[in-house]
């Protein structure tokens, strides 16, 4: 497969490709490292990195490429998680039912919220997505049967009928990684397709898009739904990872974390959300070992990235200007 020509990217195998490849090698070797050293925490941490990278990737699709700043994106982690948790509690343990349900309900939620919010822009769009996410948060608190505020323990992970055993942490890790890479490839195809150019054009200048003949609303809505569906899948993975769901999964601060990851990594880049999620979670982990207030250091760092690095961390390694 050939890379589409992009005049801004210059060299054949530059720093960006080196870093991205190195990143993938590291991720691929985490289970090996864990097996050799017996450091099972590394597995837990990196599984979380991968799942939240998937969530941040879906946010980046609408926010970075589509210019739709959703401040309620963690809601899909909750919806996906609750789809798995509720079905598990009701005795439906098959992943072939749970995961499609997680994706479908997330997509449906995105369709409704998108249809109502995408007619607004800027701060109004942010507020509407936040308001809906808070509504979902309180609905989850009200679900007494499923633990209410306390959340719900999932006693059995999704079963795939002998195809893959999610209780095997290494297998689960590689499944998450494979899904992340597959979705990254899909998103990369997407943003360079006709559809992707419409989305990017609408971010850049929506008025002009309509003037040259694009009904932009329906394209943005479909993009919003695709992002919701991807993040619903991340929610299903997260529930299986932690064996637990609770309303806290979709608290607005979690939505904020996802925005931070996407911005930190670089919004115009396919690898940006992965770099951002990894940096954010590893720093958070490292800093909480030395201080009680990791945010005191993370906060100024993000400020620095937002002010000085237009393209996030990806911009650092890529060089050259990007939108």
């Amino acid at each position, binding site marked *: 497969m050939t890379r589409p020509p992009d005049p801004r990217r210059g060299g054949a195998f530059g720093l960006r490709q080196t870093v991205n490849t190195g990143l993938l090698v590291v991720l691929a070797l985490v289970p090996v490292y864990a097996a050799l050293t017996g450091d099972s925490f590394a597995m837990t941490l990196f599984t979380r990195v991968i799942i939240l990278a998937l969530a941040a990737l879906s946010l980046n699709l609408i926010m970075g490429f589509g210019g739709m700043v959703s401040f309620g994106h963690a809601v899909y982690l909750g919806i996906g998680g609750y789809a798995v948790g509720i079905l598990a509690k009701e005795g439906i343990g098959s992943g072939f039912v749970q995961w499609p349900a997680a994706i479908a309900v997330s997509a449906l939620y995105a369709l409704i919220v998108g249809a109502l919010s995408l007619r607004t822009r800027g701060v109004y769009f942010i507020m509407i997505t936040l308001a809906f996410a808070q509504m979902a948060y309180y609905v989850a608190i009200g679900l007494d049967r499923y633990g209410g505020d306390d959340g719900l323990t999932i006693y059995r992970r999704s079963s795939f009928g002998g195809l893959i055993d999610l209780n095997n942490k290494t297998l689960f890790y590689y499944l998450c990684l494979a899904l992340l890479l597959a979705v990254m490839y899909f998103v990369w195809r*997407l943003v*360079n*397709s*006709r559809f*992707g150019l419409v989305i*990017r*054009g609408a971010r850049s200048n929506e*008025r002009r*898009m309509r*003037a040259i003949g694009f009904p932009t609303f329906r394209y943005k809505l479909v993009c919003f739904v695709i992002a919701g569906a991807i993040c619903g899948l991340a929610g299903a993975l997260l529930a299986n990872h932690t064996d637990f769901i609770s309303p806290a999964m979709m608290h607005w601060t979690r939505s904020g974390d996802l925005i931070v990851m996407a911005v930190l990594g670089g919004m115009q880049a396919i690898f940006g959300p992965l770099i951002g999620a990894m940096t954010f979670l590893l720093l958070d982990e490292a800093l909480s070992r030395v201080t009680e207030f990791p945010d005191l250091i993370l906060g100024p760092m993000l400020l620095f990235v937002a002010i000085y690095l237009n393209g996030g961390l990806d911009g650092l390694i890529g060089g050259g200007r990007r939108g």
Partner: protein
Amino acid sequence: MADVLLEVEALTKRFGGVTASDAISFAVPTGELHAIIGPNGAGKTTLIGQLTGEIAPDGGRIVFDRRDITMLPVYRRSQLGLARSFQITSLFADLTARDNAALAVQAHAGHSFRFWRDARSEPALRRPAQAALERLGLAARADMLVADLSHGERRQLEIAMALVTEPRLLLLDEPMAGMGPDESSRLVETLRRLKGGLTIILIEHDLDAVFALADRISVLVYGRIIATGDAAAIKSDPAVRQAYLGEQAYLGEQERAAQGTPHG
């Protein structure tokens, strides 16, 4: 008389107490270059907004190719063949000139719910884009980001994007705005070449350009069209002179210049 392509009937738009469009009526036959001029605040912007669909009129009709388009949204009018350029350059700054033009092609090449194939490798989109860039002398700049183009080049790209869809009616909103004399005269030449093959509505402050290009001119003052006619008729119209009080001297000068060296 050629077929009427665009017919505006009693178009009216009020903003509070101000009537920005006061029963505006005019018709543009196929192939005509019809200029609309008027002093600042005459309602030109409101009129363009209604023609393109960004502003809903309070009354009246717009008929395009025998079809009532008064209520159609912006993108539908574009798909029917009504293309426009913007007074203030309105492009995709973070894309290349070629991508800009190709997006305009794509807008008229069926739906864009195509999620997989690399759009930048589709000859069906790239070739017409390239042709339009060449037509406006931008071929050498095709791979530059719009943000890195000069003002004049962006103005040319504005028009290239409107042209690339092979529109039936081209609406040019002050295309000379902010251009130096050299760039202006180059654009006048470009428009002269386009003229005839295309129906054009030209909204322009630069009266030199208008008198040089227009087949017919409508003069808009306080939301009303006070005169329509060819350049000679407009220059000698007493109502127009009255409206252009400040520019009366200019019109007189134009007339004398025209008598000395008649326009082609």
